[in-house]
């Protein structure tokens, strides 16, 4: 296949199942653009998604796509990367998928720092199950399971990731395609576990955190003079600061990746080991038992 040049090369024939106006369209568009700009080959992209409206995205990116079970995309993806480190591994899922049922895996993916990209499509609700609170829903958010309002304080995935040893932490907004595309490219290029949280409004159920609401409630780190993404304490302060929602790359750092630590440098790719021929050295292993 020739070098990929256009987002179209990453499109599938499958019509999307999203509602008109869903923020997820923006995420998909930016992702295709990023893949194109990085001249990735669809055959070398492993795209693993969780379950949710967001999770359906794996059906719309021409690649080796895997749509697993709810909340387990990260362990699956980690293994895909270890099995074939030559692949560009990208994971996408919702705020519920990643921060509720998948929260434990999220923490461990962060500490392991495998070289892959994780896109959290955050609509602050459970879209596919019709609008219940997610871990990022605001306090008092009213919906089916909380007619009187959500009593659980929202969690800040990026702040938690920072505390857990995250090495690339960014947040975008699905109606800012250029910035998002740029972030995603940086994330894919980052040698380590890169998290891009995207504010992706659910137009059908979340009547609070709408496009309008976001436009009024976000600001950009780029507009913050002298913001230094290598300053961990500043990143923490910025992330936990109540009030408007900052967008941009909060923090980046380099430390050995899981694949480097486990596979070393000149390790043959697991998926192409010639196991069909039984390694003769294996016979000698029995000597230890004589």
């Amino acid at each position, binding site marked *: *296949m020739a070098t990929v040049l256009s987002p179209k090369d990453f499109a*599938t024939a*499958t019509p999307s199942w999203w509602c008109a106006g869903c923020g997820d369209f923006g995420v998909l568009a930016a992702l295709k653009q990023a893949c194109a700009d990085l001249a990735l080959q*669809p*055959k*070398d*992209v*492993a795209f*693993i998604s969780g*379950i949710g409206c967001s999770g*359906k995205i*794996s*059906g719309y990116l*021409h*690649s*080796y*796509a*895997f*749509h*697993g*079970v709810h*909340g*387990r995309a990260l*362990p*699956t*993806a*980690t*293994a*895909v990367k*270890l*099995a*074939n480190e*030559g*692949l560009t591994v990208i994971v996408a899922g919702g705020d519920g998928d990643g921060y509720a049922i998948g929260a*434990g*895996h999220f*923490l*461990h993916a962060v500490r392991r720092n495998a070289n892959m990209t994780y896109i959290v499509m955050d609509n602050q609700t459970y879209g596919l199950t019709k609008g219940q609170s997610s871990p990022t829903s605001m306090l008092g958010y009213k919906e089916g399971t909380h007619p009187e309002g959500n009593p659980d304080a929202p969690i800040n995935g990026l702040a938690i990731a920072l505390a857990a040893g995250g090495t690339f932490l960014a947040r975008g907004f699905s109606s800012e395609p250029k910035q998002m595309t740029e972030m995603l490219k940086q994330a894919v290029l980052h040698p380590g576990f890169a998290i891009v949280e995207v504010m992706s409004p659910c137009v059908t159920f979340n009547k609070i955190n709408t496009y309008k609401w976001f436009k009024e409630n976000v600001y950009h780190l780029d507009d913050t003079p002298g913001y230094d993404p290598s300053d961990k304490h500043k990143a923490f302060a910025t992330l936990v600061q109540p009030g408007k929602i900052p967008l941009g790359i909060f923090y980046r750092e380099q430390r050995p990746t899981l694949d480097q630590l*486990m*596979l070393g440098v000149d*390790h*043959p790719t*697991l*998926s*192409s*080991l010639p*196991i*069909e*021929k*039984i*390694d003769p*050295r*294996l*016979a000698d*292993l*029995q000597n230890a*038992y*004589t």
Partner: protein
Amino acid sequence: MITNNIEVLFGGQAGDGSLTTGDLIAAAFKRMGLEVYTYKDFPSRIRGGHTNYVIRAGEKRHYGVADFVDAIVAFDLECVEIHISEVRPGGFVIFDNSTEKLTDAVRRDDVNFYEVPLAKIAKEQLGLELVRNTISMGVLGALVGMDPQIVRTLVTKQYERKGEKVVGQNVAAIEAGEKYVNENFTRPSGYDLIARPDGDRLLMMGNDAIGYGSLVAGCRFMAGYPITPATDVLEWMAKHAPKYGGIVVQAEDELAAINMTIGAAYAGVRAMTATSGPGQALMTEGIGLAGVVETPIVVIECARAGPSTGMPTKTEQSNLNHLIFSGHGEIPKVVLAPGTVEESFYLTVAAFNLAEKYQLPVFVLSEQALCQSKETIPRLELGAVSIDRGKLVRNGGVTFGEYKRFAFSEDGVSPRTIPGVEGGMHLAPGSEHSDAGVITEDATNRARMMEKRMHKLVAMRPDLPKANVLGDPKATVAFIGYGSNRGPISEAQDRLAADGVATRFLQLRTLWPFPEDDVRNFIKGAAHVFVVEHNITGQLERLIRYVTGPLAHMHPVRKYNGRPFRPIEIIDAVKQKIKDVTKLEATDLQVRSVAR
């Protein structure tokens, strides 16, 4: 005088090293050319609490413990108290009387007692408490005539790493033990061992055989989360896989472990995980995913006594239902159950081939009494095994648009590309999908896809490991069982035969898809069918009754106290049903009454 036939029980407090010594003795017996089986009975704690290690050795190969213990090496009184009733009349006890004294309650006049101040000698003569166990080896060796040279060699090998000094101390400990016997005891133990050619054999633990089988089968990725008694497999792979290019990931939990296994397999590596009950329960959802995305994975289940945390270090066959019937919705899966250490190797290799050829999850079901037991086995024939990767497409040759990952086919299996293969891009979804992998809820497609996947269970039949038929194929008394019960059942067969009761035994090795024809045919002409299993609800019997329905002459033989069957328990069950056989001796009854 009993020659070349002995069962030694080594007992003390957990963490006092009796396991190491037990291993050494087992090795010594093996080197002396005897057939060996070992069984570990330890508590779910690290130090303290009664623990014991049973080593059975003889000229005949057994895959389980005997009715009786011949010799007890007791490091404390508790050990004698618990196990004295299990000693064969004429057997003996070696007791460390350094701090405790034997009570009259535990004395039996049909048992020889050898009291040796093991700890005292260790401390005062050798200046090292630790070698107490090694001294006991010297004592035992002198009493039963173990080859001193073999013992010294093994001890030396064992402690080499720890340096000359330690080796010296342990060799000295052996000698101190032997010396003590020669100086203090004239009474013969009644047991004697005569070395025979060892031959080219192995002494291997079930879990090691599973690990080794996986590596030979080409498994190069394992994800797992520690859990007794499956951790051994994880650690075996962690130690050996890297040398062959493989890696082992310790996951944060079993949910991650199973999904990592699926991820690695999806990417083209032969992958496995190993767990036990509680972890298996957590893997349930993931197994279903593997079934639908048709990803080949191998899952080792080292069963322990449930339910819930239950008795984590004890044995049980109560996970069979779960392996076969758990999970929402229906997928094809395979359950293989080795009955010996040797089978643990061969069936593990078979598991990887079946998984990849039919693109589904395959379980290897073992149990604490098998996976943590050692057996002497012939060398494993690598020439006898081969690797079949089925419809794996690794080197291209597929065209995007034409290629269909889930194409309908004769055998229900479709060509499988892995990431990186040009033209093979597709979506592999846990949702119902078309042959091309596109998610659809179309009714017709749905029915076809269900049939495609389930048809694999039919297509694979010729490739499934066959059941073993042991004993007299024409006998009217029949046994059906699997796993660790293979040992006690076949031993019961031999002894029943000696009593004039001929029997046959169907040792199932493929439990799912259930070998309905084999069972139907085997049962034909049987006057009595004894279904022997280690659980309370009769999980195996339930599978059999699907084929046979309830039968007046089908008799359950069940146990569920966490301890393996003793042959006598099976013999007894048979004799109770079959009137026309000689009464049992009192001692047997006594043993039966001992809850083990």
